[in-house]
């Protein structure tokens, strides 16, 4: 399956992927409204996080693992693996906010929802024609959406 692969060699730590993610997952689809209003009011947050250490930085989001620890840890059936698409799918309605998945994820790719007992996790911008917004926004080709062995 196609996944988003970050490249730490060329990640410049600009955080534009996070902003693109917020916009893509907002109601307004407008960066300014999403960042200023929806973020504070609705707890809108990016599924992506740029980690930095020294000169190195890398943008991490859900890797849609073949054998996801988060799915195994999920107590409510809120996370499952779609056998067709291969994606790790999050069902917000089933989620009880126990954060087991957060602790199980070895990549730190799942975030707590800032205001609700829910999680925030990459859905690979499902339904978005141009593919994941973060990949499209990266100014340095440090995020690639592709099939790899």
């Amino acid at each position, binding site marked *: 399956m196609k996944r988003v692969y970050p490249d730490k*060699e*060329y*990640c*410049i*730590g*600009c*955080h*534009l992927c996070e*902003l*693109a993610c917020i916009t893509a997952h907002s109601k307004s689809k407008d*960066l*300014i409204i999403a*960042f*200023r209003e929806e973020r504070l009011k609705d707890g809108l947050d990016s599924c992506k996080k740029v980690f930095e250490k020294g*000169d190195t930085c890398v943008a991490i989001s859900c890797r849609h693992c073949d054998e996801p620890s988060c799915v195994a840890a999920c107590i409510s059936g809120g996370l499952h693996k779609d056998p067709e698409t291969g994606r790790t799918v999050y069902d917000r309605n089933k989620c009880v906010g126990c954060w087991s998945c957060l602790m199980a994820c070895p990549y730190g790719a799942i975030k707590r929802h800032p205001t609700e007992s829910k999680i925030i996790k990459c859905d690979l911008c499902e339904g978005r024609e141009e593919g994941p917004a973060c990949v499209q*926004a990266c*100014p*340095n*080709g*440090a995020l690639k959406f592709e099939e790899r062995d």
Partner: protein
Amino acid sequence: MLFQPINKNYHEFCIDRDPDLCINCKVCVRQCSYEAHYWDETRQKVMHDNTKCVGCHRCEALCPTSALNIRNKPSDFRTNNLWRPVFLQNIYKQADTGGVLLAGMGSPVDIPVYWDRMLLDASQVTNPSIDPLREPMELKTFLGAKPRKLDFSVNKKTGKAKLKTKLTPQLELDVPIMFAAMSFGAINFNLHRAMARAATETGTFYNTGEGGLHKSLYKYGDHTIVQVASGRFGVHRDYLKAGAAIEIKVGQGAKPGIGGHLPGEKINDKVSETRMVPIGSDAISPAPHHDIYSIEDLLQLIYALKEASEYKSPVSVKIAAVHNVAAIASGIARAGADIITIDGMRGGTGAAPAMIRDNVGIPIELALSQVDQRLRDEGIRNNVSVVAAGGIRCSGDVIKAIALGADAVYIGTATLIAVGCTICGRCYTGKCPWGIATNDTKLSKRQNPDIAAKKLANLIRAWGHEIEEMLGGMGLNSIESLRGNRDKLRGVGISDTELDILGIKHAGR
């Protein structure tokens, strides 16, 4: 704030931040390597310090809401045609520091740009123009000495002719445009890799500059010109053999008469290894080559290098365009060089004293036409190829340079602009926000060689197409037919003396 020096407000740029658009996302804060943007903890918002802005436009380019606009600060000085603001600012600066004014990139001073004063011809009615999309168009160029005549032997049985004359080594270019000498150190490894790849892909060459060649790039050697400059940085036997040609750098258009300067800030482990100098030490090349004080000395070095490369690589000599350039070029041709590179005064640099950059040398157009003419007059034009450099901005400039007598051109500044450079001219600080003139690991990451190589190859291809179109328009189907063909050029709005030096007629004649 109260105790700032009196001249602190004489800064060059203003950062305009539109409060309706700015979302305080801090992208600008992270991008600015000069710390002009910062997060104000007290006000809980992004603020900026105009005095630190160098006008590179990196923040503007990456701002996701287009909230930023960088503009020149309108001068508050009383208008004075003699004492223009730049002179005042320089004097204030020097009165504070007591130092030489450093500058980066080519000279911004207002000297005539003759490219803009020359126009090309096109065919109408009698000599039909050629459509390069339908008919063959040849841009292939060979650099190197050409024989005066060719001898053949004919096989009496088969009647087939065979070339008897032994040809000297040639560089084969698919397009008469090469990436100019920019050393690894002045620009970073990612860009050297990108230039090497782009040159290989488009069938042309890039020049290492005087900083040596990193071992991992030896595989691109067939498209590399290795440079030997007065500091001899990074020069050893394997290096000389790694490239397809060797260039002796005597002078550089941006700083004729002085050697290269690479500040210690830009020398990291990889640069140090390639240049063979200690990490963090300034790499200052001597002004002259200490073994060249005459044409005879130059001849010795040329032949020493030919010997070292087993006569497989053509040897180029690069000089800055200065007053007696034609006579010097004649000497170089007679000293055995295969290629002469002439770098005009608008050529770029990573670091040069501003006074030298802005006041020394002559424009490439005048130098080029004079060199070509002199070599023709002396009957030695075929002994050398002439490469023009220094301020070539578009394919129109390239084709005019070729009509003036160049075999090919080098592009340096245009190469950097292709990968984002905005000519802010602070290359010497080592803090280039575009990740070009810096070896800082965090900043140089901003040049992804995959993207950069693609952009550079695109530029060469685009200019190649345009050159084909213009050639076709003139009814020519080969770049060879244009070389030194000044009848295809006309001058506009320039004096008789300038026309005479350029060897062209005025438009209308």
